[in-house]
């Protein structure tokens, strides 16, 4: 039973680490794309190239996206810190009963302290998904309006560009789904640990 639980705990830590890493990449992408978009629009505004009002709106959207990306990244870093602590404890511990229990206690403690950050991260991820989907839609419209040459390379570049943006949007929507599964599992464990503590309390009350 000890080996079985040790493997389960290890798998869960590895999965959570991977998920958090993907989250970090997405946050960095939102920040990067937002900044790039804002700068492009601001430069276009300065050069007087296009409708001023529209460019300013897009510049604000880009700045907001960059700010959301930064907030998201900070949340992910906080969660990653907890995940790395747990992973370190798991790797250091022997496969004995106390070692495994120690890792489980660490995971519970980390989840309790990071729960609100995880919830915030999930909300921001959804916003990131909306922003990327919106950006993908704008790019598609802009491409359809401006594509006139019939050149295959230009067509392929446009399609690839739009596809990449929509794929990133999809990942941003999938991240909350997987974190939702994780949170549900750990909320159940927290509830179960409260029942376990009732049993421990009863034992302590009967002992002297």
């Amino acid at each position, binding site marked *: 039973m000890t080996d079985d639980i040790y493997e389960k705990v290890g798998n869960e830590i590895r999965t959570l680490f991977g998920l958090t890493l993907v989250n970090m990449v997405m946050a960095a992408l939102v920040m990067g794309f937002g900044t790039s978009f804002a700068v492009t629009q601001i430069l276009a505004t300065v050069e007087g190239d296009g409708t001023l009002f529209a460019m300013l709106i897009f510049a604000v959207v880009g700045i907001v996206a960059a700010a959301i990306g930064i907030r998201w990244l900070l949340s992910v870093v906080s969660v990653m810190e907890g995940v790395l602590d747990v992973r370190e404890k798991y790797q250091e511990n022997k496969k004995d009963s106390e070692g495994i229990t*120690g890792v489980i206690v660490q995971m519970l403690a980390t989840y309790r302290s990071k729960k609100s950050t995880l919830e915030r991260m999930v909300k921001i991820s959804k916003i990131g998904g909306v922003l990327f989907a919106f950006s993908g839609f704008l790019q598609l419209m802009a491409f359809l309006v401006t594509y006139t040459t019939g050149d295959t390379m230009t067509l392929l570049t446009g399609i690839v560009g739009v596809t990449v943006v929509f794929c990133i949007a999809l990942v941003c929507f999938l991240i909350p789904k997987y974190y939702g599964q994780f949170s549900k599992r750990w909320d159940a464990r927290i509830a179960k640990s409260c029942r*376990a503590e009732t049993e421990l309390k009863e034992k302590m009350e009967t*002992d002297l």
Partner: protein
Amino acid sequence: MKGRRTQYEIYWEILVFCREQRTFTSIINRCDMNSKKGQEYLKFLLGKKYLVVEGERKLYMTTAAGREYISLFNGLYQELFNERPGFKLS
């Protein structure tokens, strides 16, 4: 240990650490708590006879009753992972 631990988890940590004789300072350092909280927890565990103080150096040591608590705690907490399936991306 970072994060939010319950008092029962802290009791468990202290009792596991004190299976060998330990000083007060080493306990509060290992279990990551302040001196005042450490004194409260140790006083409680001494009252329950889960810990005893030995020798002139006042070294804390887990008793047989304390080891029973550890055993019960291990079993209950490992049960938290004894459900199928564990968290897996699907």
